[in-house]
């Protein structure tokens, strides 16, 4: 006989942070596998995981109930399930109210609030935290709940085979009888399989900040918080089958699904009573006339008509108007902003000034952006100057109100290092050992036995085995809610009727309980306002050039197609520029030899894991260099691949290829793009394989090429770059390159003031600039501002287009100096020049620690013979006093002390220690003689060695990379006073020298030279630590994985 089924009504997933141990999708899958008729997801004080559960349930055709376990002011809890859309809105509003009034991470609601929002909700009252089992009878609460919920209030039995539950259940049953509440059987579900119990124990310990040994009764006494099979549940409640049956009744009453959410984008308040579509058309056509002052070309007009038609058909006019308004607001405030991503495929976006790329002229594919078949919201990413993005975020809040605008969440999840730290602590491993272990673990990779062995631990010990196992299990488990970098959800109806809103840790921000993927899965509109450091650099550069030379520059007035700029780019001399500055890009540029803007678009796209792993780079380069004939697998593909010489490089090309070669509709092609992105997770790409290949073969395309195209599609899946995206980026890349070539001082200055950003440290950027003849002046309290500034060279100051300029380093580079302290210093200096260290300290109210920092950085050079003298003086400074009290008096005359001045090595070392850079020299300059005596060349000499020759080299490591697609190869960039050296470590060599490779900042490499088209790599065979009389301090390497 079949056991009577039941519905688990009280299930908490990993999104009840640090409580549940299973992913919502896992719970749904297991419930489906067990043959349960439905499952209710009721995370604590939130609905963070419902979309994931919904998506999986939709795929399986499995009914899902949605609700939440709410925490009350009195510390008890109540379970609420949404019956319908109004109930869902009530639940979201309740959670929002509780969250917004509570500190981040907690929530409290009152009984009255619950009763006010009872419509459309079912309440389940029970569990050990419930007021219903509290020793003091909740008579008053029971009355108001019964009045509010009527027959939708149930007493929830909760059994987990614990002895203490007997008394609690007896009390609950007695009170349920007294209050007239029907009983429903349940048990708290925290994991879908029993083997997750260990992880649940660990999460509980993390939540309470205790170890397993000291957790006591904070962890549960058994593994009964599992999703039970119908048979097991029937056995658990064999004495009360009626209560079990009632769980089905409750589930029957809940009909709400997230599919019921009908979302409307907020409509703009329009002038002249026109509707959104008309207004958008007017603005677009006005914009088109500005973009094409000599008359809008026919094909542009046609494209605009097509796009406006689609936009109107899909009712997306409001969204475009919002983006237009945001961009206009940026312009009004003088903030650089530029749309990117697939929006650059839209002529409407171009005419509305949202994007800067003409998609018609570029031949970009509109369907990549928007299609009627897909009917999915468009995705417009707006890059805004990094420093000023917050202004625009607050503007959006102000314009739409907190009820209609909230930022999208981002879930912070456990990664290898955080996982090993937390699990290690919980297992009682000494924290110092755990810390050592965490540093040895790869930040993104797995956690293997070897890591333990490297840390001196025995991986066979049971505790260490548990550490390995649980560290693996906990990875990707959400830890807490954070905020998406710039995603907004805007709603016509209040957002809190859609999804709960809560406070973000950042002041002035509110955040919804869903992340980017959730928003996409539900087809909701997201407005992405992203911060871009490069725009910040550009703005700063334009300002500096205007101030120093009186020349007005902006993105539109930078001369296009500037030959010296392209010459510099072709030489791979692009450090500091946007997108084309990485080691790989710099190595590619001399081979690619870009000559125009479109070449840059290709350059940006081709140095990506997709094209690299798809084997597209070398064929393209050969064809470009004329070493290989440009051919097309089929004449029909020529229009698609012509601009990239027959090689598919962009995501759009793959889509077009599917359209032309395999007769995909544009919508199908976009589905292909989406499936490419998801192929690893779901294998959805396989559906396209046969269709693509067979149709291409039918068209007369060689099967070999068809197979190759499919492989390229796979490569693109995760790492492909859309042409529209590259086109937007190429504009900024060119602008930064132009500035580097023609205004190197302003470029460096802007770059240094916009840090941290980019690929290289300030020290490396400064060294590169010096090699380009930029004059740098060190930090000096008598001359430096907070930011780095431009100073006219020579005695006569004044602005002029040809005035030679020097860069004066800013006080912002003094480690530990706060902005407020610097402001006091600048204010005091504006009143009168400083006469001594004591005077500086007194008037700027700096303590001896701060003056000592200034002395060490050489910023007090005007007051002492050398830095040690200045340091001795600064150490005598007393605690800051009010500036009005005047100068600090020395109590009595002090005997003089004499110190030795710094030698050149020490000078550079002190610069780096106190300000992370040196204007005076490179750390290796003073060691050059010693290095040469050991037969070690500098970077320039190394580059002159013949291909295949053996070489030994020593330099400072400034960058390490181990791309996931490179088969374990590690790329390093080493630096000396003459330039950079690219080093390649094959996996075998890396494994042999792993510790040295990962930890040493001054490194010796022995290997062979690989030279091709002026690009030189040192292929490492051996790594070693150079032995010198002095060792340079630790350089800061920027490591990427």
């Amino acid at each position, binding site marked *: 006989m079949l056991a009577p089924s039941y519905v688990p009504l009280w299930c908490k997933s990993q999104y009840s942070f640090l409580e549940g141990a299973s992913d919502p999708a896992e719970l749904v899958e297991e419930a489906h596998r067990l043959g349960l008729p439905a499952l209710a997801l009721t995370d604590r004080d939130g609905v963070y995981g419902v979309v994931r559960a919904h998506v999986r349930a939709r795929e399986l055709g499995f009914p899902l109930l949605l609700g939440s376990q709410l925490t009350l002011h009195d510390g008890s809890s109540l379970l609420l399930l949404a019956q319908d859309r109004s109930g869902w809105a009530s639940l979201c509003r309740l959670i929002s109210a509780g969250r917004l009034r509570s500190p981040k991470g907690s929530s409290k609601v009152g009984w009255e609030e619950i009763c006010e929002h009872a419509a459309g909700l079912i309440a389940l009252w029970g569990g050990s935290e419930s007021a219903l089992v509290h020793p003091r009878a909740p008579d008053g609460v029971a009355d108001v709940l019964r009045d509010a919920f009527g027959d939708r209030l149930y007493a929830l039995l909760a059994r987990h*085979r614990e002895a203490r539950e007997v008394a609690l259940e007896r009390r609950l049953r007695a009170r349920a009888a007294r209050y007239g509440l029907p009983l429903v059987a349940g048990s708290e579900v925290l994991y879908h399989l029993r083997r997750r119990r260990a992880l649940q124990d660990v999460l509980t310990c993390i939540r309470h900040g205790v170890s397993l040994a000291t957790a006591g009764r904070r962890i549960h006494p*058994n593994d009964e918080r599992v999703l039970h099979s119908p048979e097991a549940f029937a056995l658990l409640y064999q004495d009360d089958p009626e209560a079990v049956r009632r769980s089905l009744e409750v589930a029957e009453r809940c009909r709400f699904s997230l599919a019921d959410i009908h979302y409307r984008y907020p409509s703009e308040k329009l002038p002249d009573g026109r509707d959104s579509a008309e207004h958008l058309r007017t603005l677009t056509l006005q914009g088109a006339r500005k973009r094409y002052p000599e008359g809008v070309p026919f094909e542009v007009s046609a494209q605009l008509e097509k796009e406006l038609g689609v936009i109107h058909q899909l009712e997306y006019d409001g969204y475009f108007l919002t983006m237009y308004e945001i961009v206009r607001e940026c312009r009004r405030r003088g903030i650089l902003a530029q749309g990117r991503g697939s929006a650059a495929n839209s002529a409407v976006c171009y005419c509305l000034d949202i994007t800067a790329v003409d998609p018609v002229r570029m031949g970009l594919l509109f369907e990549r952006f928007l299609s009627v078949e897909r009917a999915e919201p468009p995705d417009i990413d707006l890059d805004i100057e990094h420093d000023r993005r917050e202004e625009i975020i607050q503007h959006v809040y102000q314009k739409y109100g907190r009820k209609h605008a909230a930022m999208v969440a981002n879930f912070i999840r456990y990664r290898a290092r955080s996982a090993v730290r937390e699990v290690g602590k919980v297992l009682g491993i*000494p924290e*110092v050992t755990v*810390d*050592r272990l965490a540093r040895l673990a790869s930040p993104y990779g797995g956690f293997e036995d070897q890591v333990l062995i490297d840390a001196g631990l025995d991986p066979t010990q*049971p505790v260490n085995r548990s550490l390995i196992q649980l560290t693996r299990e906990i990875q990707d488990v959400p830890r807490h809610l954070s905020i998406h970098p710039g995603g907004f959800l805007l709603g016509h109806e209040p957002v809190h009727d859609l999804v709960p809103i809560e406070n973000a840790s950042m002041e002035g921000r509110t955040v919804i309980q869903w992340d980017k993927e959730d928003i996409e899965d539900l087809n909701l509109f997201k407005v992405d306002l992203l911060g871009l450091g490069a725009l910040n650099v550009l703005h700063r550069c334009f300002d500096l050039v205007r101030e120093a030379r009186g020349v007005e520059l902006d993105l539109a007035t930078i001369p296009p197609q500037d030959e010296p700029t392209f010459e510099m780019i072709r030489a791979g001399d692009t450090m500091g520029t946007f997108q084309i500055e990485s080691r790989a890009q710099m190595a590619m540029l001399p081979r690619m030899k870009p000559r125009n803007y479109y070449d840059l678009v290709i350059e940006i796209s081709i140095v990506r894991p997709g094209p690299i792993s798809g084997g597209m780079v070398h064929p393209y380069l050969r064809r470009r260099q004329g070493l290989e004939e440009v051919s097309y697998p089929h004449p029909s593909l020529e229009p698609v691949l012509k601009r990239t010489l027959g090689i598919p490089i962009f995501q759009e090309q793959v889509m077009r290829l599917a359209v032309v070669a395999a007769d995909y509709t544009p919508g199908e092609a976009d589905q292909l793009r989406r499936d490419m992105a998801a192929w690893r997770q779901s294998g959805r790409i396989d559906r396209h394989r046969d269709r693509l290949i067979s149709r291409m073969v039918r068209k007369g395309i060689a099967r070999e090429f068809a197979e190759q195209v499919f492989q390229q599609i796979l490569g693109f899946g995760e790492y492909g770059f859309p042409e529209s995206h590259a086109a937007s980026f190429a504009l900024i890349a060119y602008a930064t390159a132009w500035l580097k070539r023609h205004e190197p001082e302003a470029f460096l200055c802007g770059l240094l003031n916009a840090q941290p950003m980019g690929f290289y440290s300030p020290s490396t950027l400064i060294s590169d600039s010096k090699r380009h003849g930029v004059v740098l002046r060190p930090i000096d309290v008598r001359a430096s501002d907070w930011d780095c500034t431009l100073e006219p060279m020579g005695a006569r100051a004044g602005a002029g287009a040809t005035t030679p300029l020097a860069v004066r380093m800013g006080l912002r580079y003094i480690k530990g100096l706060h902005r407020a302290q610097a402001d006091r210093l600048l204010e005091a200096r504006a009143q009168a020049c400083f006469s001594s260290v004591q005077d500086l300290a007194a008037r700027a109210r700096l303590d001896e620690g701060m003056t000592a920092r200034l002395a060490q950085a050489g910023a007090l050079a005007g007051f002492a013979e050398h830095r040690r003298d200045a340091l001795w003086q600064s*150490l*005598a400074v007393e605690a800051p006093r009010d500036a009005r009290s005047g100068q600090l008096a020395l109590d009595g005359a002090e005997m003089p002390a004499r*110190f030795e001045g710094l030698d050149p090595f020490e000078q550079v070392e002190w610069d780096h220690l106190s300000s992370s850079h040196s204007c005076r020299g490179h750390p290796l300059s003073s060691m050059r003689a010693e290095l040469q005596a050991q037969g070690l060349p500098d970077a320039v000499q190394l580059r002159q060695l013949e291909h295949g020759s053996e070489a030994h080299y020593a330099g400072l490591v400034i960058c390490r990379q181990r791309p996931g697609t490179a088969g374990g190869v590690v790329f390093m960039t080493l630096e000396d006073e003459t330039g950079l050296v690219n080093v390649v470590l094959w996996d075998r060599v890396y494994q042999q020298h792993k510790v040295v490779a990962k930890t040493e900042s001054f490194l010796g490499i022995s290997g062979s030279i690989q030279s091709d088209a002026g690009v030189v790599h040192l292929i490492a065979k051996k790594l070693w630590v150079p032995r010198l009389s002095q060792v340079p301090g630790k350089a800061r390497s920027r490591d990427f994985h």
Partner: protein
Amino acid sequence: MLLRQHPDWRGLPAAVVDRDKPQGELLWVNEHARALRILPGMRYAAGLGVCRALRAGTVPEEDIQSQVAALVRQLSQASPRVEASQEEPGVFWLDADGFEFLYPSLRQWGEGLRRQLRRLGFEAVIAIGFTRFGSYAAARAGRGVQAFESPQQEEAQLRQVPLDRLGLAPRVRDRLAKLGLHTLGAFATLPEGGVRRRFGVEAQKLHQAVRGLEWAPLCPEQLTEPLVRRQLFELPEVDAERLLFLLQSFLSELLPTLAQRHEGIARLQWVLQLEDGSAHEEELSPAQPTRDEAELLSLLRLRFEAIRIESGVVELQLRVHGVAEQAEQSTLFAEAPKRNPEAARRAFAQLRAEFGNEVVQHTRLHEGHLPEAQFAWEVCEELPVARASEVRPIPLIRRIYTPPQALPPRPRHEPDGWLIAGHREGPVEEVHGPFLLSGGWWLRETARTYSYVRTRSGRWLWVYHDRFRRRWMLHGELE
């Protein structure tokens, strides 16, 4: 001490940290760590940044204190005057005056001492000099044993001592290094007033010490040995009464000495060497330190009545451990409490004397799931202050068996019913449960299924089935 706990760390950089946290401060570092410029005062995380192989651990303060005390006792065998540094545990000054006449040279005396310490597992650096600071600095900077021939040689050596070898505050140490001052000699060239202004009083003291302006006498530890009396018997003694009488006479002799020391007896230990070669040891403590001979004798008598001596005693040794007397003045003005804790302590002392030192125990509740993990019996050292508490009626009394008793393996379904406790108790007639307890997976996994069962005899048994041992256990009974 840390390396003695972790011998495998000896070849690695290692440090003692003040707390088991990545931000814990390094208190001591070994030579391997020092060679990598990992210095005391750094954070562990910073040290790990320098060398990923850095090992670290904590050493409890009480362990350090007790080890220092043990070393003082050990060093007292080498010199009668030993001073342990209060600021730097592990630093000791010994008075070597006159040993040059007892040993071929002071260096040899030092080497003997070093060997002795090595046998205890410690590596010592010994400097034999003419001044307190000179020898200290030489020991901090040197290796093995150094013996200076003249004060001038010591001073010359002193000036070469690196500053980072001394226990300077890290901030001061680092700043002096930045000024290019790396040795005590260079440090001494600074003007004294300038040193005080910039680096504080401690640095000034060091400055004075380097220049020979700081002097402090040796302050040797005062060692208080227990008082011992011993009696050898020509003929084996078998009469306990006579032994007791002898102990009384010992006490009478020792009590005046204790009075002179202002000490009371906290503990009595006696050893009976028996003619069969074995030894019988006993000890007892009075309710509180006392010199009341009658009270002590009554306790001794109780203990003697409780013990059996299997063969004749050939030697009796008594050790008396005294502690300083407590001032009782405050009690003179205190209101007399209703309870008399003093009487309770005396009663406990008598119980301990009669039944053994661990006979008085109390329970301590713990937060555990396993029944046996929810409480523990602890020896009651001190009489706790009585506090009124709410007394709740207990519906059933559960008698817990420690350890649980194994029940005979019986199938659950027999013709006569479930005879869990055998035929005598009859079959089980009522069951409540099952209640599951499982856990401890990180250490030793447990999985028990508990039930309350009533047998036909009327007993309520509290039983469980152990999943891993695959058997039924009786954990208690309900009364």
